[in-house]
C-alpha cells in the first residue's frame, strides 16, 4: 500500500501524515480562520469563477456543455449554445453525470481480482506489467486473433482501443452495437449504402416513429426539432406498444404488437404499390429490384398485416394514403435502438422495410423527407510522428459468421461465442458494461470465466468490472482531455473534451494514458510515441483548425459540406437504392425486402416484454449516480408497466409487487398500472437491477431486463435479439 512508504519514516506511535514542518508561528497564532470566517471571506471575494468546455458523457450524443466552476469546484453545467446536439440545453443526465467527479461510488485505484472473487488494490505499474505478461502469453500460444476489445465509442476510446488492438495484430475491435442499433444500421446500409439518415423536421408534413422515443432517449436537438415540427402542424405518428414520453408531440398513437412493425410497414408498402401511390420517377431511376419487391409485397395486404400486428387494416390504409399525400415531405423515422435496433429476429429486415417505404414515398433526400448527410473526419497525419499500424492479417472473429453486420462495429457477441469455444482468450472492455446490458448476463459471465484475461476500464465497479481480472479506473469526463470529436450532418463541426476540474483521485487516469501504458507493457509502445495533445493538434490541422482554436471555442464549425436537397448518391454495390441485395442472398436470407416473423410468440397466459429508456438514465451506467438515483426512487421509476385491463384481470392494483418470470430468471418489482400500454405487453425500463455490491444505490433496485432474455444472435447479423422473450407475471401476496 502507498501509505506504507509515508508511514515508515519514524516512530510509528508518533506518525505524521501531513508533510512539511508546520510554521510554528502560524500554529500559535490566535484568531486563526474558522470555517464561518473563511466562507464569509470567500463570499466577499466572490470566488474564482471559471468556465470550461467539454462534451457530456451521459450518453453517446456527447452534447457540448459549458461547466462553471467556483474555486476550482464544479458548480453548474449548461448546454453549449453552438453545439448542434445540445443547442444551449442539457438533459437530466448531463447535470447528473457532471457530478460524477465527486461521487463516492467511483473507483479510485486499479484493482485486481483474487481467486475468491474479491478485489484488492494494485499499483498501475504492477497492473500494466501483469497484463502485459498475460497478453504476451496469449500472443505466443494463440496469436493476436485471440485478443479482443469491446467499447462504446467515445472520442479517445474509439481511436486508442482500435490502435492498441491493431498494434497487437488483432482485428477484433467491436462496439456495443449488437445490443444497440446493429440490425437497424446494417439494414439501412444494405438498402441505401449509408448506415443512418435523419428526418428533415423543419420541412416535414408527416413523420412516423417506429418505437423510437425522442422524449425518453433524449438528444436535446431532436426534441427541439420535433417540437418545432409539431408546432407547425406536422402529423406525428407514434407506432409503439407503449404511449411513450414523446406522446406529448404526437397526433396519433398506433399501439402495435411487439416485434411486428415489419408487417405494418409492408402493409403500408402494399397499399402504396397496389393503389399506385408510389413515386414512379424515383423507383425507375434510382432503385434496383422493385419488380421482385412489388411481386412479393402483393401478398402483404392490410388485412394480412392486421392479422400479424394487430393494427386495424383501416388504420394501415389511412396511414399509407396520408403518407402518400404528404410525400415527399414525409418519412419513416430511422430509429436508434428501440424496436428494431437489435430487438428481434426480424430487426434487420424491419430496417430494410423502413427504407423501402421511404423509397416508395420518394422522400430520400427531399425536403421534409429522409436525408443522408456526410460526416467530416481527420485527414492523414504525419506517418513518422504517428506511425501507421499495419492492417491485422487475420479477419475479425465473427465477420464470417455474421456477414451482414456493419463492418464499422462488428458484433460483440462474437466475443462471447469466442470465449466459449476458445477462439478468444483475452478481452478488454472500455466504456462498456457488456455483462449487464449486451446479452444474457449469465451467459456473459460463463463465457468470460473461460477467458485467460479480462481487463475492464471504467469509472465504477460495474457488473463487467466485477468479473474482470483487472479493473483500471478512468477519471471522469470533466477531468480529462480527449481527441477531437467530428460531427456530421447538414453542417460539419469538430468539438473537444477539455479538463474543467483537477483530477480528484490521483490514481485515476484518462483512457489515452491507460492505453499507452497497456501498449508499452504489451510490447507495442512504439506505436504510441505521441501525446494526445500532439495527435489532437495534428488531426485538427488536417481540417483547417488547431488545438488552441478548438480549446478556446469548445466547438468549431468546419468547411460547409455543401448539402443540397435532392436524391442522394446511394453508395451501394449497385449504386442504387436496393430493394434486393446480393449480399443478403449470399448470407442465406431472402434478398428481396419482405416479411420475417419474430422468433418468440407468447402463448396464452404469457406476455411480451419490451424495454425502453428514461430521460434521466443511460443504459446500465447511471443508476448509482446520487442525483439520478434519487429521482428514480422518488418517482418509483423502476416499476414494471402493465395495461389496466390486464391488471384488472389478474387482480393487480397500482403499486402492487409482482413476480416477473421468464425461462432465464425471476424477479420482483412494483407495478405501474396504466392505460398507456397495449394489453398483453409489459414494459420494463432498462436501467435497473444492478448486481454489483459496489454500486450501493443501484444494487437490487428494480430488475435488469437482460436477466430475463435468453441468448440468441440474429442470423447473419449477430444482434442480441433483446426482446425475444415471453414472460409470465403473478401478484406476490405478502
Amino acid at each position: 500500500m502507498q501509505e506504507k512508504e509515508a508511514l515508515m519514516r519514524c516512530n510509528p506511535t508518533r506518525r505524521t501524515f501531513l508533510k512539511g514542518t508546520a510554521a510554528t508561528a502560524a500554529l500559535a497564532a490566535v484568531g486563526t480562520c474558522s470555517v464561518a470566517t473563511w466562507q464569509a471571506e470567500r463570499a466577499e471575494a466572490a470566488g474564482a469563477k471559471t468556465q470550461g468546455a467539454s462534451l457530456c458523457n451521459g450518453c453517446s450524443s456527447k452534447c457540448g456543455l459549458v461547466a462553471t466552476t467556483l474555486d476550482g469546484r464544479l458548480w453548474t453545467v449548461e448546454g453549449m449554445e453552438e453545439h448542434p446536439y445540445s443547442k444551449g440545453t442539457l438533459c437530466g443526465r448531463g447535470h447528473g453525470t457532471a457530478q460524477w467527479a465527486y461521487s463516492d461510488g467511483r473507483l479510485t485505484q486499479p484493482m485486481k481480482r483474487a481467486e475468491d472473487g474479491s478485489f484488492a488494490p494494485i499499483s498501475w505499474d504492477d497492473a500494466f506489467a501483469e497484463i502485459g505478461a498475460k497478453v504476451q502469453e496469449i500472443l505466443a500460444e494463440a496469436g493476436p486473433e485471440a485478443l479482443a476489445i469491446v467499447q462504446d465509442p467515445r472520442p479517445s476510446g474509439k481511436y486508442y482501443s482500435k490502435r492498441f488492438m491493431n498494434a497487437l495484430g488483432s482485428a477484433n475491435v467491436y462496439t456495443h452495437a449488437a445490443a444497440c442499433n446493429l440490425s437497424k444500421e446494417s439494414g439501412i446500409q444494405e438498402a441505401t449504402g449509408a448506415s443512418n439518415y435523419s428526418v428533415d423536421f423543419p420541412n416535414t408534413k408527416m413523420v412516423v416513429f417506429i418505437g423510437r422515443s425522442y422524449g425518453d432517449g433524449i438528444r436535446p436537438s431532436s426534441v427541439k426539432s420535433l417540437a418545432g415540427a409539431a408546432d407547425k402542424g406536422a402529423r406525428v405518428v407514434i407506432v409503439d406498444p407503449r404511449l411513450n414520453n414523446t406522446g406529448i408531440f404526437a397526433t396519433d398513437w398506433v399501439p402495435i404488437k411487439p416485434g411486428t412493425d415489419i408487417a405494418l410497414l409492408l402493409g403500408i408498402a402494399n397499399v402504396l404499390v397496389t393503389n399506385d401511390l408510389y413515386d414512379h420517377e424515383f423507383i425507375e431511376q434510382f432503385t434496383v429490384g422493385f419488380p421482385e419487391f412489388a411481386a412479393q409485397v402483393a401478398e402483404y395486404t392490410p388485412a394480412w398485416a392486421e392479422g400479424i400486428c394487430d393494427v386495424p387494416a383501416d388504420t394501415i390504409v389511412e396511414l399509407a394514403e396520408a403518407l402518400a399525400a404528404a410525400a415527399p415531405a414525409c418519412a419513416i423515422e430511422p430509429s436508434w435502438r428501440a424496436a428494431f435496433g437489435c430487438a428481434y429476429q426480424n430487426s434487420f429486415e424491419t430496417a430494410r422495410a423502413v427504407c423501402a417505404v421511404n423509397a416508395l414515398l420518394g422522400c430520400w433526400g427531399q425536403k421534409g423527407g429522409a436525408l443522408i448527410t456526410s460526416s467530416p473526419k481527420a485527414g492523414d497525419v504525419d506517418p513518422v510522428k504517428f506511425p501507421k499500424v499495419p492492417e491485422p492479417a487475420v479477419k475479425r472473429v465473427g465477420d464470417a459468421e455474421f456477414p451482414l453486420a456493419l463492418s464499422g462495429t462488428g458484433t460483440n457477441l462474437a466475443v462471447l461465442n469466442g470465449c466459449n469455444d476458445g477462439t478468444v482468450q483475452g478481452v478488454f472492455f472500455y466504456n462498456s458494461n457488456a455483462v449487464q446490458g449486451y446479452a444474457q448476463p449469465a451467459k456473459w459471465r460463463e463465457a468470460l470465466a473461460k477467458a485467460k484475461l479480462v481487463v475492464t476500464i471504467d469509472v465504477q465497479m460495474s457488473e463487467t468490472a466485477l468479473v474482470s481480472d483487472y479493473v483500471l479506473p478512468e477519471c471522469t469526463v470533466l477531468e480529462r482531455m480527449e481527441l477531437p470529436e467530428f460531427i456530421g450532418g447538414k453542417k460539419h463541426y469538430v468539438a473537444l473534451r477539455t479538463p474543467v476540474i483537477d483530477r480528484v483521485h490521483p490514481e485515476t487516469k484518462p483512457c489515452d494514458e491507460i492505453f499507452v501504458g497497456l501498449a508499452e507493457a504489451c510490447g507495442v509502445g512504439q506505436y504510441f510515441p505521441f501525446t494526445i495533445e500532439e495527435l489532437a493538434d495534428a488531426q485538427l490541422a488536417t481540417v483547417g483548425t488547431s488545438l488552441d482554436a478548438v480549446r478556446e471555442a469548445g466547438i468549431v464549425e468546419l468547411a460547409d459540406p455543401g448539402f443540397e436537397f435532392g436524391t442522394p448518391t446511394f453508395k451501394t454495390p449497385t449504386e442504387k437504392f436496393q430493394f434486393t441485395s446480393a449480399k443478403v442472398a449470399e448470407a442465406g436470407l431472402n434478398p428481396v425486402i419482405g416479411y420475417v416473423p419474430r422468433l418468440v410468440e407468447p402463448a396464452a397466459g404469457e406476455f411480451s416484454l419490451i424495454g425502453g429508456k428514461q430521460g434521466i438514465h443511460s443504459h446500465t451506467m447511471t443508476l448509482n449516480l446520487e442525483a439520478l438515483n434519487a429521482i428514480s426512487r422518488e418517482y418509483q421509476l423502476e416499476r414494471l408497466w402493465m395495461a389496466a385491463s390486464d391488471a384488472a384481470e389478474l387482480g393487480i392494483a397500482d403499486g402492487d409487487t409482482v413476480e416477473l418470470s421468464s425461462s432465464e430468471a425471476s424477479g420482483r418489482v412494483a407495478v405501474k398500472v396504466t392505460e398507456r400500454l397495449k394489453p398483453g405487453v409489459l414494459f420494463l425500463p432498462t436501467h435497473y437491477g444492478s448486481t454489483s455490491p459496489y454500486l450501493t444505490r443501484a444494487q437490487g433496485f428494480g430488475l435488469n431486463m437482460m436477466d430475463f432474455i435468453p441468448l440468441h444472435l440474429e442470423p447473419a447479423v449477430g444482434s442480441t435479439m433483446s426482446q425475444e422473450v415471453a414472460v409470465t407475471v403473478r401478484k406476490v401476496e405478502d
Partner: protein
Amino acid sequence: MQKRANYVRALGALFALWGADYPAAYEGAQAAAVDGLAAPAPPSAAVRRRLEDEVLTLGALAATLPVESLYKPWASMSGGDGDGPAQFGAARNLLLGDSAQHMRALYDGLELEVPPAYEAMPDHVALLTEVACLYAEAGNGEAVRALLADHLDWLGAYEDALATRLATLGARPLPVAQHHDELTAALAHGRELTGALTRAIHNLSQSLR
C-alpha cells in the same frame, strides 16, 4: 490540553491504513490514553485487514470513509447583497466539499502538505486530528477549540453511516460469502473506534472551557 490532544490524534490515526504495522498504532493509542478513557483493543489481523481494505479504502466494497465532506453539505456559500441569499454547490455524499477546501486553506497557511494518498481527502479524520494536536502542541487552545467545533463535529453521522452499512450488509450479497463475518466485525470495530474518538474529543473540548 496537550496530552488530551495527543490521545485524540492517536485515535484519529487508527483510521489510517497501517497494513501489518497496525498493532503499533493501537499500542500508541493505549499509551496516549488519558483521564481513565479506555483505548480500543486491537482486533484480529483478519478483521483489521477487512476494515482497511473494504471500509477505509475509497471505492472499496463497503467503503465508508471518515472524511468530513461526505457528511456535511458540500458547499454553503452565502453571497448576495442584502436582497436575499444565494447558495452554490451540490449536495451530500460528495468529496472535496467546503470542509476539504477550508482544510486546504489551513494547510497552506501552516505550510503543511497533504500526502498524495489523501489528495481527495484533505479532511480525513487522521489529518484533522493531527492538526488539532499540532495546534495543542503550540499551545493554541483557541485554534483547537475552533477546529473541534468546525471540523470534528460529524462523527455521529459517521457512526450512523457505519451502522447503516452494517445493517444493509445482509441484504446485499457479497462476492465472497466468507468475508461477511469479518466485514461485520470490521464495521462493528469501526464504530467502536468512532465512539472512542468521540469521547476523547469531548474530553478535550471540555478541558478547553
